[in-house]
């Protein structure tokens, strides 16, 4: 047998523990799903598996933070908690390893639900990035993801025309306008990392949490009168008819508002430039 260097041996040990942890996780999950293992031993075994996976992975990633002892236990608990909540969430969505009474596996995940959670996650993550980023450019790019996620949610709700308008107007228009404004108002030599300072962030966060809690409570508890599920039909023709019959006056007023906004924006933004050009001419 050839000489094995200690480096390679440590590497192989990490790999073996990683594989054993993964096997333990999958085996305990499967045994629990098939009904051989009660819940508590499953959780303990999976926790042990997570510890093995974390220790094994630590040989390859985050090597500057060697995990051992108490730190390893704590970090593994955090990872396990996150995995547990993700699994719980997925199970409430569809039940990844759900088995019906006849012993057959039921479908893995409802794709529509998964699409909703992905889009909602993208939207909320983008909005959070916009709200908390230190750099205003990053805020603007986060806003891009929030807008795209909202467009996806519109499609999920069968609103194809608003989704297209969202992409064209918000992503193609307003976001570009915002980026232009950022570029035009940046002082040269200013530190871009601090262009987006906060004021009273704890108060703002408390306000946001209170608002979110209240609105969520209302959304969940209110007895909404839900109509039976509607089929997904193209809405453009219906929207066009609505705009030109029932909503004709608001539609025309909106046109006038847009024209006024266009002219007003030009006048407001070019005032100073005109004066400086006058000064140059004099």
């Amino acid at each position, binding site marked *: 047998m050839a000489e094995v260097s200690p480096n390679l041996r440590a590497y192989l040990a990490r790999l073996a523990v990683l594989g054993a942890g993964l096997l333990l996780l999958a085996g305990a999950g499967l045994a629990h799903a098939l009904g051989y293992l009660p819940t508590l031993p499953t959780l303990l075994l999976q926790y042990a598996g997570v510890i093995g996976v974390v220790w094994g992975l630590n040989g390859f990633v985050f090597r500057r933070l060697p995990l051992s002892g108490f730190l390893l236990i704590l970090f593994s608990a955090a990872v396990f908690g996150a995995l547990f909540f993700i699994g719980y969430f997925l199970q409430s969505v569809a039940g990844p390893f759900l088995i019906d009474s006849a012993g057959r596996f039921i479908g893995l995940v409802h794709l529509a639900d998964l699409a909703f959670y992905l889009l909602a996650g993208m939207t909320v993550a983008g909005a959070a990035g916009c709200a908390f980023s230190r750099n205003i450019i990053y805020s603007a790019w986060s806003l891009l993801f929030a807008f795209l996620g909202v467009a996806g949610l519109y499609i999920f709700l069968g*609103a194809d025309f608003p989704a297209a308008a969202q992409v064209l*107007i918000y992503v193609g228009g307003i976001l570009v306008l915002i980026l232009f404004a950022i570029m035009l108002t940046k002082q040269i030599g200013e530190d871009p990392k601090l262009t987006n300072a906060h004021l009273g962030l704890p108060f703002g966060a408390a306000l946001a949490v209170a608002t979110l809690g209240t609105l969520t409570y209302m959304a969940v508890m209110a007895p909404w009168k839900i109509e039976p599920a509607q089929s997904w039909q193209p809405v453009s023709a219906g929207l066009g008819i609505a705009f030109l019959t029932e909503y004709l006056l608001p539609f025309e007023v*909106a046109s006038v*508002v847009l024209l006024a906004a266009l002219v007003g924006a030009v006048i407001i933004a070019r005032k100073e430039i005109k004066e400086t050009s006058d000064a140059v001419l004099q």
Partner: protein
Amino acid sequence: MTTIGLPHFLIVGAALFSLGMVTVVTRRNAVGILMGVELILNAANVNFIAFNHYVAAPGTLTGQVFSIFVIVLAAAEAAIGLAIVLAIYQTFHTIDVQETSLLRE
């Protein structure tokens, strides 16, 4: 059959609204405040379209019509708001809302 219902969308809308509000309240950069306003308008739109899909009678498009009007007004608001930001910048040479508290030059 999907398990997603109206409350899911209302919660997403609530999260968007809360994050937009925290942006408006805490930002010192005027452009950042306008971004928060856009988030709030998007939250309202999500609610409009969700109610249109789940609560309105089949075949009605009132919520979607309103969402289009909101998008139109958001475009106008962004144009005017950013023009005002540019005017503020030309006057004060900063867009920090803490320092632009004078009503005249």
